[in-house]
């Protein structure tokens, strides 16, 4: 409570001998903050190159048609300071190639064997779509898909196809319109499949994979942090409110009661206290002339007393019909 009426200069005052005292907790605080900032920057710096590395497909989706032709869709980040970008296609028999840039304008392309030269001219991301006949081969009734992929990819198998062999571990598998969609990791992948009339007799229930749980965990984590933050914020707010309430609770009928005033101003002179009592009992206000009459004080003595109380923040003076109207202040926090 007393800290509220403490002169603020005390907090920063120098010792008598002029030694500058430095607050250790501030240094500690600054150090922690700096460390935290540095750590954040390192993490951000470490992650940025991964997220913005050029020439790596951001998405790679493949759809196999029943005749073995594969539709490839991919998005690649390219260097915006180059005029063109050469992309290795997954084969040389390409149809229906569409390449669009940032502004979704068609970009000029030139297919040379199994690569395509795309004129990017400042574009940062290119979206590519094409059909390719080189990824699936057929022997008898067995179809074999083969791809050496530079990144993880999604593969949608034709309807009524049944996988009978594969060389890689799939990351995920789901059913889309009665078709198996596999998510596979980068590198060489070979998948054998047959067409069958009773392939999806036991429909594969959409897997509830670990990713979902992990996503929930991340979202939960964020919510918990936000809640903790809110709790800390509310608690601090309440602390401040409580400290204010100590002053404001006793306010009734817009006037502080005497006990509160004397508690807050324990150093008031006894004759000043009498003045305050009188004003309080007079509905919180009195003319300076009334005070002089009541306490039989000369004009200057009463003027000094009123000024003293004004300085203490107990009363305020207003002009009324060319006279001084002395009023008890409604709240003393205004001066804190």
């Amino acid at each position, binding site marked *: 409570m007393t800290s509220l009426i403490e002169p603020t200069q005390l907090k920063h005052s120098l010792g008598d001998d002029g030694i500058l005292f430095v607050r250790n907790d501030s240094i500690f*605080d600054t150090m922690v*903050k700096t460390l*935290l*900032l540095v750590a*954040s920057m390192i*993490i*951000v710096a470490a*992650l940025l190159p991964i*997220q913005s590395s050029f020439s790596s497909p951001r998405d790679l989706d493949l759809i196999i*048609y029943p*005749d073995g*032709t594969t539709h490839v869709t991919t998005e690649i980040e390219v*260097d915006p300071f*180059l*005029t063109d970008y050469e992309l290795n296609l997954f084969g040389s028999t390409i149809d*229906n190639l*569409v390449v669009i840039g940032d*502004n979704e*304008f*068609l970009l*000029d392309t030139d297919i040379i064997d199994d690569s395509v030269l795309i*004129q990017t*001219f*400042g574009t940062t991301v290119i979206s590519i*779509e094409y*059909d390719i006949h080189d990824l699936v081969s057929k*022997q*008898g*009734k*067995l179809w074999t898909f083969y791809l050496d992929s530079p990144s993880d990819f999604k593969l949608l198998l034709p309807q009524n196809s*049944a*996988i*009978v*062999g*594969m*060389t890689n571990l*799939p*990351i995920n*598998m789901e059913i889309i319109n009665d078709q198996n969609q596999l998510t596979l990791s980068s590198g060489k992948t*070979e998948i*054998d499949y*047959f067409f*069958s009339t*009773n*392939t999806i007799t*036991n429909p*594969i229930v959409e*897997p*509830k*994979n*670990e*990713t979902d749980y*992990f*996503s929930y965990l*991340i979202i939960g984590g*964020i919510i918990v*942090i936000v809640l903790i*933050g809110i709790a*800390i914020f509310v608690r*601090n707010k309440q602390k401040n409110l409580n400290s204010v309430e100590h002053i404001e609770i006793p306010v009734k009928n817009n006037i502080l009661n005497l006990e509160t005033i004397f508690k807050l101003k324990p150093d008031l002179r006894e004759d000043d206290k009498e003045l305050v009592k009188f004003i309080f009992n007079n509905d919180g206000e009195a003319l300076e002339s009334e005070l002089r009459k009541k306490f039989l004080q000369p004009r200057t003595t009463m003027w000094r007393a009123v000024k003293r109380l004004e300085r203490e923040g107990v009363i305020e003076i207003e002009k009324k019909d060319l006279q001084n109207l002395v009023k008890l202040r409604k709240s003393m926090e205004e001066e804190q």
Partner: protein
Amino acid sequence: MKKLALFTIIILVFGTISPSLDNQAYAQNDPSILLRIAIQADNQVVNQLNNIYSNQIPKNIEILYNKGHTAVNSLDQSLSNDDIEKAKQDFLLAMNSFMQISRIISQSSENVVVKTTSDISNQKISNELDRLEKYVKTLESISKRHNDSAQNSDNFPKAYSLIKEIRNQITTGENPSKNINQLKIFVDSIKNDMRKSAAEKQSIAIKQFFERLIDQIDQKVIQVKDSGIDQTEIDKAKGLILEIRELLSKNQINSAKIVYSELKVVLKNIEISVRIT
């Protein structure tokens, strides 16, 4: 205030890390998928064996099948025991065995005719048409985004009507190859028109990019002048730069691009990078 700042930093750091964490999580397997695929493959192989061999399955295939089937059972067991590494091994073993069986079957049944030739041919044409339709739709959506609809207002409906006609031909058993070729040529012409329109719309941006690039290349050529590089190559580069500038000033961007590809070869010879900064 300090706490608020700290809290903000934590949120920022967490926000930055979380997407990468999610990617890592995504890269993990759902082990139950392995069992589902393996069981599906097992059933399919059994169906194939029954269709082809009935009860007289060759010994080598029987051994392979038993190996694969045992691996599937082991996979189920491994998953029950939460032994993921063992489950992965079992899965690969099972799928490898089934793959070998399938390849043996497919070699021996190469002559088995499942569908008539015309059916297969129709399916191929139908698939090709599906892809062409998808291609047309992609071009149409790009065209719409750039308000090229006025230019292509007749083109896309014409393409769709041709696709419809070809589908009818497939259904009635007519030979649609002539119409398919016509459709391909027509769609290519739409694409070329769109490309020309895009080039016009982007010409200012490309020109500015080009001019900046040529300025920087010119600077680099001047810098390497006295570093012992073949003077004829430098002169050649300078001549091409001059030519590109002239073409750009006449807004002949496509011609400038052609000359630039020549310049790139020369620059490669004199080891100058063509990346602008």
